[in-house]
């Protein structure tokens, strides 16, 4: 009987450990995001509009900002930056556009995912407005001019002279179950919203 008691204790402790480790696997998901955000690695930029302090324009240097637009997998849209490169001063707010066209006859929803290289620059590249913060629905044969407003942080390390901002456009028509022409906006990184807007 005494032995049974001792066994039960160990089984209980170890089972709880196993359950906690199962939870830890899931905790890695937010931890990973937090880690990437804090360290600015992985080229992940903020997923919400920049609300921080405004900057003094740094006249002493210019940064070359390159824009890349590409499609994921079988995404059929035409997707291009209106300007391929810009020379900008750190601290200065810049407006530029990306152009997208849905060449199919069907209504589709797209989501653009940004990535900054070098990864170190991601924390110094602030977007005050970006089409990537929202899903982009587009009726068949329609096209759209999508704005991006950004500012390069004057604290950007001195050795970085070029920043590349790459957008990958995903077809999320299946996931984004929004009634036609109802331009409801769904924040991009909220997994809960994905749950709510799932089309069954």
């Amino acid at each position, binding site marked *: 009987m005494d032995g049974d008691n001792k066994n039960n204790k160990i089984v209980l402790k170890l089972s709880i450990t196993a359950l906690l480790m199962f939870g830890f696997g*899931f905790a890695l998901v937010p931890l990973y995001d937090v880690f990437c955000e804090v360290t600015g690695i992985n080229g992940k930029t903020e997923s919400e509009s920049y609300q921080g302090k405004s900057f003094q324009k740094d006249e002493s240097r210019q940064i070359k900002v390159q824009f890349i637009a590409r499609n*994921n997998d079988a995404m059929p849209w035409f997707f291009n930056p209106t300007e391929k490169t810009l020379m900008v001063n750190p601290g200065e707010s810049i407006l530029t556009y990306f152009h997208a066209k849905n060449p199919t006859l069907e209504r589709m929803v797209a989501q653009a*995912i940004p990535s900054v290289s070098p990864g170190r620059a991601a924390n110094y590249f602030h977007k005050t407005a970006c089409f990537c913060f929202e899903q982009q629905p587009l009726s068949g044969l329609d096209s759209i001019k999508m704005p991006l407003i950004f500012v390069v942080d004057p604290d950007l390390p001195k050795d970085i002279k070029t920043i590349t901002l790459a957008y990958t456009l995903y077809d999320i028509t299946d996931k984004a179950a929004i009634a036609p022409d109802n331009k409801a906006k769904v924040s991009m990184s909220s997994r809960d919203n994905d749950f709510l807007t799932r089309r069954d």
Partner: protein
Amino acid sequence: MAGPDKGFSRWLLATNHKDIGALYLWFSFAMFLIGGSFAMIIRAELFQPGLQLVEPNFFNQMTTMHGLVMVFGAIMPAFVGLANYMIPIMIGAPDMALPRMNNLSFWILPFAFAILVSSLFMEGGAPNFGWTFYAPLSTTYAPPSVTFFIFGVHLMGISSIMGAINIVATIFNLRAPGMTLMKMPLFVWTWLITAFLLIAVMPVLAGAVTMMLMDIHFGTSFFSAAGGGDPVLFQHIFWFFGHPEVYIIILPAFGVVSEIIPTFSRKPLFGYASMVYATAAIAFLSFIVWAHHMFTVGMPLVGELYFMWATMLIAVPTAAKVFNWITTMFKGSLTFETPMLFSIAFVFLFTLGGLTGLMLAIAPADMQYHDSYFVVAHFHYTMVAGAIFSISASVYYWLPKWCGRMYNETMGKVHFWIAFLGFNLTFFPQHFLGLAGMPRRIPDYSIQFADFNMISSIGAFIYGLAQLIFLFNIIRTIYFGEKTTKEQTWESARGLEWTLPSPLPFHTFERPPSIK
């Protein structure tokens, strides 16, 4: 006490640790042959450049299933079987602490693998995304059978966790009086640490496949960039499980070899305490090096450097172990029976595999080696010459004790030399193939890789043949082997198992032995 039940119910309702150990070992042998035949198909296709035998998609199913079946179906259950059979005896316990749970954790396995293997006959075929099942290959682009794969992984994870809990409970609660922790045989020590690794990382694997399941069926985006997730996250979670997993496979092998080498050297193991500490150090380090599998995903420099140095650090405790085995043999009066041959080959070949591991740990060099046949050669030196050789060694070592009959020594040696030759013929040339740039997981290759691939395939067929000799020798021993009742099968074997009669009675140590 009652003897075993008659007929099939003895096995179905088994709670005796020896019966369950035997079930695990036979199950693992069956899986070994199935996984091995997948490997034969792979090597037959790669015998020549061009596509001769199978479709590329089926080839991918073969590489995937070969890896999954061998890792989770053959190697892991084999060591769990050895643990069930030997640990209670080695610590002077009458049985495992939780015999009913033991029964359950075994009987889950055949179902898990029936589900996994049956996916070969499903529409769209078996999983084809590699045994590492990286998203989005295993989510967005997976065949429909992926859901069965996920279910199978869940089952086998539950089985492993229950098995591990049982082993920890047995070692903590059932040691004979006087069997202090630092008197335990090394096989028991390495298994204790392995059990903790299993409890820590199998749930993380379960989490990874659960996230896959949710991405596939419930519209989440854990690993899909389109919804704000990240496919690289999958690799982090997978390898957080995956690196400790390779030690789950190799630590019990270290334990087995640490039992066998002293016996045939007729000397006690050199550096017992350092072996225990080295095992614990390896287990600890295994949690903080996972991203060395991901040097090419675009990690920042600090990340690459950290994972590079941390990985290389593992070479220190591992080298201490190799040093201890060699020193145990040094000036011993060695004899070379089959278990010893396999153990010496283990030390030699596993060290080679460790060395190529060090090469792969060098982040800048890994850019060249990554996903090439060099990696395939590396991990087969550790998985096959490491785990499988040590399992072969332990079967020969303990078989006379288990069934009271002696195996055929000549046939054992023939098995060893054919396996040794076949193994090296298969995998040594793969180093060169990898360095020359041949990628892994391809059914066809360019002409310049032809010669080495042909050698490798011939070696694989030889190695496959050696396993049939092994099987034949085991069955022959059980039914026709020369009877032996000696307690000491090997003249200078130490440990409680050698104080018991051969064959082992159904119940042992119902009264705890006295430990000096």
